[in-house]
């Protein structure tokens, strides 16, 4: 491979990687905000993402609703589904079982329920694509070719993440969320309504997943199994340290770029290995992840 081609590949890999990476980053963010506050890896995050995609598809394509109704309705549905799951199912499970394992199993249950629901409707039988809301004309950035849709995906994802970081770091509600993550007992002692705070966090996590779904579904074939993309988001979260929000975002972009680089420079068949390669390298060099704090041994 000559240098000229390598340079083009490099630029294309970064550009495409940032686009798919923005979806991984969003989903990783959704996973990490829940993990930081509930200590539970939400294994249903991918299915929430998938189901939100189908809600949008149903409203837009089958019900022919205008897009300005479809978008907020989808986000609201994702918010309510996740907030209610936290309030009705998890609070109930937590009351009768002290061990966190049961909560994790409950999220697995949710993932099967959502998948089953979508399968039952039959919409998932034929792979479909959500119509693109932004033209898919190509533009060149440097020597990389991307579509306007790609730019919109990246731009929206970055804006959503920036808004979320602002909320988390500079508002009273965001501060309370961080407080719950650090010390739930102390948070209660200053008057944080723990139940409401958890509902809000799970709801927001649903909204972020739904945004990811709305962004990527014009580019992929939707199936009931599209939630398996969440493995890449978990990889991103692990690379970032699993409890760091900036880590989740950077991890998402790294996974996206590594994936595209492997596809371009090695082989498209090696792409599935890319995230594991990234995890392996990061964990060997920095076991706590890129943005993780000091390693602490948890007593069990």
């Amino acid at each position, binding site marked *: 491979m000559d240098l000229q081609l390598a340079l083009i590949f490099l630029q294309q890999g970064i550009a495409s990687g940032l686009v798919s990476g923005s979806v991984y980053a969003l989903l990783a963010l959704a996973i990490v905000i829940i993990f930081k506050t509930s200590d539970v890896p939400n294994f249903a995050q991918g299915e929430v993402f998938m189901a939100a995609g189908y809600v949008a598809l149903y409203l837009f394509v089958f019900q022919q609703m205008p897009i300005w109704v479809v978008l907020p309705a989808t986000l609201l549905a994702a918010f309510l589904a996740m907030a209610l799951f936290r309030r009705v199912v998890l609070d109930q499970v937590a009351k009768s079982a002290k061990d966190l394992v049961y909560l994790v199993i409950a999220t697995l249950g949710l993932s099967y329920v959502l998948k089953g629901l979508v399968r039952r409707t039959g919409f998932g039988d034929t792979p479909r694509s959500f119509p693109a809301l932004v033209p898919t004309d190509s533009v060149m950035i440097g020597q990389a070719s991307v579509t306007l849709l790609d730019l919109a995906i990246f731009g929206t994802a970055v804006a959503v993440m920036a808004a979320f970081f602002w909320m988390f770091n500079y508002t*009273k509600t965001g*501060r*309370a969320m*961080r*407080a719950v993550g*650090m*010390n739930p*007992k*102390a*948070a*209660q*002692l*200053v*008057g*944080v*309504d*723990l139940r409401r705070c958890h509902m809000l966090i799970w709801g927001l996590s649903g909204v972020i997943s739904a945004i990811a779904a709305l962004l990527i579904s014009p580019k992929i074939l939707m199936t009931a199994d599209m939630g398996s993309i969440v493995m890449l988001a978990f990889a991103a979260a692990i690379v970032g340290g699993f409890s760091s929000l900036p880590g989740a975002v950077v991890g998402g972009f790294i996974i996206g770029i590594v994936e595209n680089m492997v596809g371009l420079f090695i082989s498209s068949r090696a792409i599935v290995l890319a995230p594991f390669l990234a995890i392996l390298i990061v964990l060997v060099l920095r076991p706590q992840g890129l943005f993780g704090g000091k390693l602490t041994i948890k007593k069990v």
Partner: protein
Amino acid sequence: MADLLEIDAVCASYGRIQALSEVSLKVPQGAIVALLGSNGAGKSTTLNTVSRLVPVTAGQIRFAGEAIQSWPSHKVVSAGILQVPEGREVFRDMSVRENLDMGAYRRNDAAGIRRDLERVFEYFPKLQERLQQKAGTLSGGEQQMLLIGRALMAGPRLLLLDEPSLGLSPLLVQQIFAIIERLNREGLTILLVEQNAAIALGCSSYAYILENGEVALEGPSEHLRRDDSVRRTYLGG
């Protein structure tokens, strides 16, 4: 004077372990009342039933005449009952400033919050010097000051103090208790949990002694200080 807090035959348990059986105590408006007892006697549990972190299985808790034993914890805070917990329960990765802001979580009166922040700085000048420092990196004494400051930021009517002297040097204990007495003189009602009976009996007007989740003894602090059995068990002879 009227009782601000009344705990009336309260029972509480952790699973099958009964931690409190029919504990009754009263905290009059404006007083410092001490709650003493050895490790595991149920002192923290008593405070946590009031803060509504531990469910009450029987009995009643009244604050300013209102039954609060089935309230959620945030409502108790809004009503003005603030606990300063034992152990260093600060928000470790937040700055001192953010910890203090969290104390005012349930308030919206910006002017009042600013006034209380000034007041906290007046009591604990150390905190003002370290506003941007992460709370987790403060010394034990500074963390204790921060915990009290955080509770004061809520504008409390009743302070529940859980072993404020724990792990502090004698000099720091003196400083902390000077501030506790000053807060009380300025009108704050305080329920004080302590293992250091000498100092607690010194600053309180009335005291209860818990043993195995039951009130074993109670009386004016001055009497308890002279009581032989109290001297032997809690004051070291």
